[in-house]
């Protein structure tokens, strides 16, 4: 489009400096203590760090507490339909290589009603940064079971406790062909959240980040324990993985070396129970990207189009 080469487009075409405030829009209407607040801050920090031009940045979401995210970013935003963030984001990116696209979704939005689009978006592997804010509950609609709710979770749709084992978003994502970046982090470790989102943004393709997120209103107990317990998280680390400042890294009791190019080991770690593994499970920088296909012929001059149409008409001429 307008003559720019895809690769050129991704360079922010601006010389002014953007401060944090330039990315903020209004006060976030999430509950006090909601994990989403800190995630928002990390994202705004990333935008500043990368000096993303607000007008070249698009946040796409579905419906849910988490999906209100775009309203709090002073960028372009698309607060669409429940479960449908991925198709919209794909459409946005398809012919606009010059835009940075982020997807913010919830566990119900992504793993329940949005499942089909989630699975296929992984396969399309279009360059976008995906944040699954997973509080293991339906927040906006006031406490119904989510596919990621631990078995036995008492909710308004399962007052006796939920019946089924939870979906494992990391494992499911790793099961889809053409998967290229899968990471997990936890909202109460902002340093790790930030570095993970940064790595995701830098990945040349579809980067999927599950952020374990606290919902103090409806899932108070769930992570309270976790937050206080230093062994609740297990850090997956590797020189090819997510870089942490050594002080941050030192703060972890459980640390495992995991080479993110080994998908089989990644799948084994995804099954870890007891402690929550955070870090990079898998990355492949060379997976084919559908957005590159989408961009290959943008900006064709009108004359060329007209002659293409005419040669088509010739086929039907009598």
């Amino acid at each position: 489009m307008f003559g720019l080469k895809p690769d050129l487009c991704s360079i922010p075409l601006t010389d002014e400096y953007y401060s944090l405030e330039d990315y903020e829009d209004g006060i976030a209407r999430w509950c006090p203590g909601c994990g989403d607040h800190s995630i928002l801050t990390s994202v705004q920090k990333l935008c500043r760090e990368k000096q993303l031009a607000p007008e070249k940045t698009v946040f796409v979401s579905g419906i849910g507490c988490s999906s209100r995210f775009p309203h709090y970013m002073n960028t372009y935003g698309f607060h669409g339909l429940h479960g449908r963030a991925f198709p919209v984001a794909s459409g946005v990116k398809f012919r606009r290589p010059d835009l940075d696209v982020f997807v913010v979704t919830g566990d119900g939005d992504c793993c329940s009603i949005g499942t089909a689009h989630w699975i296929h978006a992984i396969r399309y592997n279009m360059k976008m940064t995906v944040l699954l804010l997973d509080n293991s509950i339906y927040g906006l609609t006031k406490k119904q079971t989510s596919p990621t709710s631990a078995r036995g979770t008492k909710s308004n749709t399962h007052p006796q406790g939920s019946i089924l084992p939870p979906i494992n978003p990391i494992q499911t994502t790793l099961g889809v062909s053409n998967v290229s970046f899968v990471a997990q982090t936890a909202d109460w470790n902002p340093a790790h959240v930030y570095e993970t989102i940064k790595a995701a943004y830098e990945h040349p393709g579809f980067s999927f980040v599950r952020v374990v997120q606290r919902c103090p209103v409806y899932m108070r107990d769930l992570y309270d324990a976790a937050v206080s317990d230093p062994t609740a998280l297990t850090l997956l680390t590797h020189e090819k993985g997510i870089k942490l400042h050594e002080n941050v890294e030192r703060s972890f009791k459980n640390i495992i070396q995991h080479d993110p190019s080994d998908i089989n080991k990644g799948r084994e770690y995804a099954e870890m129970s007891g402690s929550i593994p955070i870090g990079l499970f898998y990355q492949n920088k060379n997976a084919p990207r559908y957005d590159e296909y989408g961009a290959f012929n943008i900006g064709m001059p009108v004359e060329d189009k007209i002659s293409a149409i005419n040669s088509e008409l010739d086929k039907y001429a009598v």
Partner: protein
Amino acid sequence: MSITQSIPASKKIRSSASTISQHIVEIVSDSGEGAQKAGQSFGSVSAKMGNGVWTVEIIPAEIQPPARSRAGASGIRIRVGSEKVTNMGDHANLVVALNEQVLYGRIAQNAYAEGTIILLENKWASSDIESIRKEYAMALADFNARGFKVVEIPMETECLKFVPDPRKGKNMWVLGMLCRIYNRDLTKAEEQIRYTFKKKSEKIFESNVNLLKGGYNWAKENLELNFEIPPLQDAGELVVMNGNEAIALGTLAAGIEVCAMYPITPATSASHKLAECIENAGGIIHQAEDEIAAIGFAIGSSYAGKTAITITSGPGMALKTEFIGLAVMAEVPLVIVDVQRGGPSTGLPTKVEQGDLLASLYGAAGDAPKIIIAPATIEECFQFVILARKLAEAFRTPVIILTDANLATGVSPFPRPKINADWLAPPIDQSRWKENISPYNWDPETGLSQRPIPGQKDGMYTLTGLAHDHNSKVAYDPEINQKASEARSRKLAAVLQTLKPPKINGDESGDLLVVGWGSTKGAIEEAVDTARNSGLKVSSLHLRFLSPMEPGLEEIFKKFKKIKTVEINYSDKVGDPLITQKSRRYAQLAWLLRAHTLVDVDCYSNVFGQPINPGKVLNMIKEELINKN
């Protein structure tokens, strides 16, 4: 123009070329025998000679039906006339059949009548399988009993003179025979063959030409059948295609660069055509995981750039409903093509219906005003995509184009469009957004506003499906939702300002006004013209805009004693058990017109899954104006 006429048919009856105004020809066979290729060539040659032409393929329900099966009838109908031909017409005048069984598939469709000439491959008479010989003999007797004029023809034997395996090639011999019967220009036919086989070797071309000539000469020597269909005066440069191909080329001509779709009959062939050519015209087609994703992708694409298109049919429309509501609410330009098929549910996937009008209007929850237009001809299929893209952007709204299986598969020539650079969408605006203008800066008069496109500095906003104010901020104050709803609704009134009352075919007053929409135009007008020639006071009117409804209808209706729509969708028949004027459920356009004009609009409709042909409409008109008086 009269629709059918009996003509000499068997070797016994002598005659020289009799001049006729039009003829309906069919070639039917098992699938894979090339009947369609022969028919398309015959149509093209006729178009080249300046005749009006309409061809439609006959497609079996299964993908590979067994040979000589009734359900397996595969082939083509070609209607050739002196004037413009706008529909597939009524009963066939002349049929070429490669076996007798497939004819029964067509008889079930009521495609033939007494007097229909049938040129029948006679090899089955001497088949070494007895059952086949029996079937053939029985059918022959039956055909005669039905009053068909059957001529048995040794096609196989004749073709064997040119090729070892007539299954490949017989179609060209048939083409040659038809060229003789209708005095078609053989050199034009040769050109056509060269074009058809351009990818093939010279040898193949030659053997096909030999078959062509063989068929021509054999007919000359052995058949007295010979018709002259005088051409219209030079129609100028023409293109000949079906409605789905016209949709596809219209998409290119509209400058649309993204088509997101999911396969569904009968819409898919439009996408097939696009898949073939859109990349050369600077666009891309995306096959999504489902219809919801397809429209979501198109909306995302429109939001971030040029208006995109999505193409589907009934069941797909149902799935797109929620996203259409979002596009209306957030005012995202979008073109949606619905190639209507038989419903409800999976219904009749390959058959025609005009059953999605009300669903398109009212499918989404809440008030979701949108523009709906329906092309009436193949040429309009091409033009309306360009129109739709313009409307979508000018009025910042989704636009639904309702076409149907009849237009999708009908093939007819129309003047070759001169591609106009203005048709093509300009590159998207990336200039700095005017600071003080809000993303939904609704004009109080028209409800119109200009939309910021990502990339535009200072245009940043978050689109939302929640009730929102002009800044796209979520609305808590009750007034806001009311005002915003008014603005969106007002846009339809603004569109209305740009429309003129529809033209009437026939007098401006009379005993009966037939109202139609979409693919039925040709058949309705042909029937109305015939009726008028026989002195009946009937006129017709055809609607292209269904939302907003075209202006001036009340005034027009007042001048007629009776208004009746002709539609291909369901309506109860008064007089059927339990069905009264009160309990009756009306055809879809009729229902809308009743609410809109408060005139007692009647309807003639059915769901046979077939195009309504002129004969049926003519009978209805006579019913109304003769029998009832």
